[in-house]
């Protein structure tokens, strides 16, 4: 049964009428065309589909869209317009943190949610923050370094 659902997506109000049991990931990718949100596993393990819902990182493949009524959602498409994103992008490039890139938008989202609450994280905190994101290319160390660089260069930004 279809239901009307309202939420704020990348700072703009969205109103859709759909089956509330559909995955938020499919709403974002198929209905709203936000293809930066990737499907890597479809069961909440890999973090490629991570988005920010009400300031928390969530895997959108295990969220039923009916549960986001009234929520504020940020995807990579919204986040990439910010200064914080630009700094993370540059730091990731400098650290060599991006190989195939499929996991990267989700990891950028994880880095943002970490730096928001802990602008100067130590290595352990960074590893914890990205432990819900799988990367098969880098072995993670260069991603950890990228987040460190962003934290150092981004004093006052977060």
């Amino acid at each position: 049964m279809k239901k009307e659902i309202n939420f704020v997506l990348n700072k703009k109000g969205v109103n859709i009428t759909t089956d509330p049991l559909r995955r938020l990931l499919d709403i974002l990718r198929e209905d709203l065309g936000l293809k930066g949100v990737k499907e890597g596993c479809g069961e909440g393990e890999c973090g490629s589909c991570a988005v920010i819902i009400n300031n928390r990182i969530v895997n959108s493949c295990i969220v039923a869209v009916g549960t986001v009524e009234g929520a504020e959602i940020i995807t990579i498409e919204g986040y990439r317009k910010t200064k914080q994103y630009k700094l993370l992008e540059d730091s990731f490039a400098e650290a060599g943190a991006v190989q195939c890139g499929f996991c990267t938008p989700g990891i950028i989202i994880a880095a943002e949610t970490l730096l928001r609450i802990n602008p100067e994280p130590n290595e352990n905190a960074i590893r914890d923050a990205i432990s819900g994101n799988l990367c098969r290319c880098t072995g993670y160390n260069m991603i950890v370094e990228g987040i460190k660089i962003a934290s150092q260069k981004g004093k006052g930004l977060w």
Partner: protein
Amino acid sequence: MKQKISIPIKKSDVPEKAGGSAKYIADIEFEGMLYAKTLRSDRPRARINSIKIPELPEGYYIVDKNDIPGKNRVKMIIDDQPFFAEDVVNYIGEPILLVVGPDKEKVFEIVYKIKVYYEDIEPIFTIEEAEKEKKNPIYGDDNCFAEYEFKKGEPEKAFATLSYIVEDEYSTDYQEHIYLEPQGVVGIYENGKVTVYGAMQCPYYVKNALLQAFGWDENRIRVVQTTTGGAFGGKEEYPSLIAGHAAFAAVKTGKPVQLVFDRNEDIEVTTKRHPSSIKFKTALDENNRIIAMDVDIKIDAGANAGLSDVVLQRSMFSATGVYNIPNIRVRGKALATNKVPSGAFRGFGAPQVFFAIEMHMYHIADKVGMEPIDFKTKHILMRGDTTSTGGLLRSEVKLPEIIDTIDKMSQYREKYEKFKKKRDGLKGIGFSLFFHGCGFTGSGEKDLIKAKVKLKKKKNDKVEILVSNVDMGQGAQTALRKIVSYSLDKPIEHIIYENPDTDRVPDSGPTVASRTVMIVGGLLEKAARKLKERWNEAPELEIVERYKQPEYIRWDQKKFKGDAYPEYSWGANVVEVEIDPVTYEIKVLGIWGVYDVGVAIDEKMLRGQIEGGIIQGLGFATIEVMNIKDGKIQQDTITDYIIPTSKDFPKIEIKLIDNPYEYGPFGAKCAGELPFVGAAPALASAVQYALNVPIRKIPVTPELLLSYVNLINKPQNSKELRECLTTEHVPPLRDPEVSGTEIAELKETS
């Protein structure tokens, strides 16, 4: 001395990938696109008696073997793999037909409603069964996709005269690629021409497979690679199969057809690393020098031949490791079983044997009372020596420098001594030496690939690289642009390299075998130097460069004699571990790597290859467990098949040893696969040292360790295991109740 080209630059694709605007195949929508879902066999081996298909709603289609205009076989070494099953199925997951239509859910619904009526045939699941079963083989009359043997010196004579012989048997299991982007393709049929877009390593493999499947003229088939989210060999041969599916469906429906896997389907039906069983018999003289080695390798190929023949060859050519052994016999078999086909995976048969040879060398060292690092060093290959196939090592082999460097970095010897004298928890340290043969075997580049590259100078003074090699994350686009930019003396921003489209690029060969930089980069360097000389001739220019085999290469493919590879890259790993005395979980405390890859084209990208390769290798050695029970994969999701996370392994310390190769671009050799190869044996050696139990198989799980340790605690269980206790220290053993198949297996064998 550091070369200028090695200084890192930023990878060119970071902005679009990090910002989520890069378009992977699942992100591309075509007007009127339909969705395809595959109906697959749920039997490991059966005859298909009939298929009952429900009435289809309008706009929905079935695509099957009758929709293939040409040959229903995926073009490979042996054409035994059908695009769609004919009368029999040979593994769970074998494709039977597609359902295609505009609504995904409806398509899925139809797939579930189709009934296939089977008549089961007795399946073959293991290497042993495959060797025994002659009555009803899956392939040929002996289930053997490939069988080879080669010799060096006089192994029979050596074994007849020497009395000190050490025998060992090792095994390795499946590994799944888990590239983060699942496999996918889109087929389009327009104006009598088929185009397939998709994630892939080898656009021309796909094109050639489609040519054979359609039997059409060459200009009616086009293949375009889309930004590829990791591959590791998994997108080498497999995309040819699904490209066929999408193409047949596009022709039948007249609409674009998308075939993208979800993770579960990807794990269940795509290729994996070959499980292996490797036996050694080694004879030593009275000075503890190895005089002869006999190696017997068997790999589990699964239901179709795929690339198993060449995977087996690389296993065999790597079987005696980095050691100079005068008398050698190596035998190998790739066997058919009713399981998902095994295939290419980073290292391509080498990681299995390097695990085995390194553990075997460690075991012999223990037996003769030498430290493994000394025993191994005593046997290393040097310039002027010949390889197992009799190929002359012409370049300097810098293993002594590599060993010395890694010992200093990791304090290997010091820790080895310290852990021996004083037990400080269950700590251990392990060491591995390894090489990777660069590029295709023997004369493969000359006889099979015949690579051709093109450089195009445009009116605006920009230069386009036209090759069929792909960037799958490893950084090929940046690396090859860097080579051309440096050779031409033009800024890198002026060098263009788009995803290959077979209508635009020549066949420079597949993106495999660590050949992209060394071979394709080498051709581009030559082309760029020619273009530089002719730069002012005309506003637009095209330079074509074809592969010419270096004159020194001698290879007899029939006898396996000569230079199995044009050149080798070398390396060493040290891994330090601590084992939890209660749970037997392995905690890795330190990882070190030293590599000679000639010259780094970009030190940062190379570090990316090394770090990623090592962590994949450690996953292979420890946590990546895949079992197949009655033909069905037990770990078919990422929840069950676990790969390393950011919390599993510590930082890695890396050093590079410069050793320019005359025929490589700027001196570069191969690098992409090498770092994978040495990780597992270094880890397994560290575990063996920590617990003082012989590690004979990977992955080394806590369950396996617990069962080993308990067996040793009960000597009546295993005479063989007890023999391996050679040093003084014995781990503080507990004696909990243990049960499980591991022990049952061990009891049977002991």
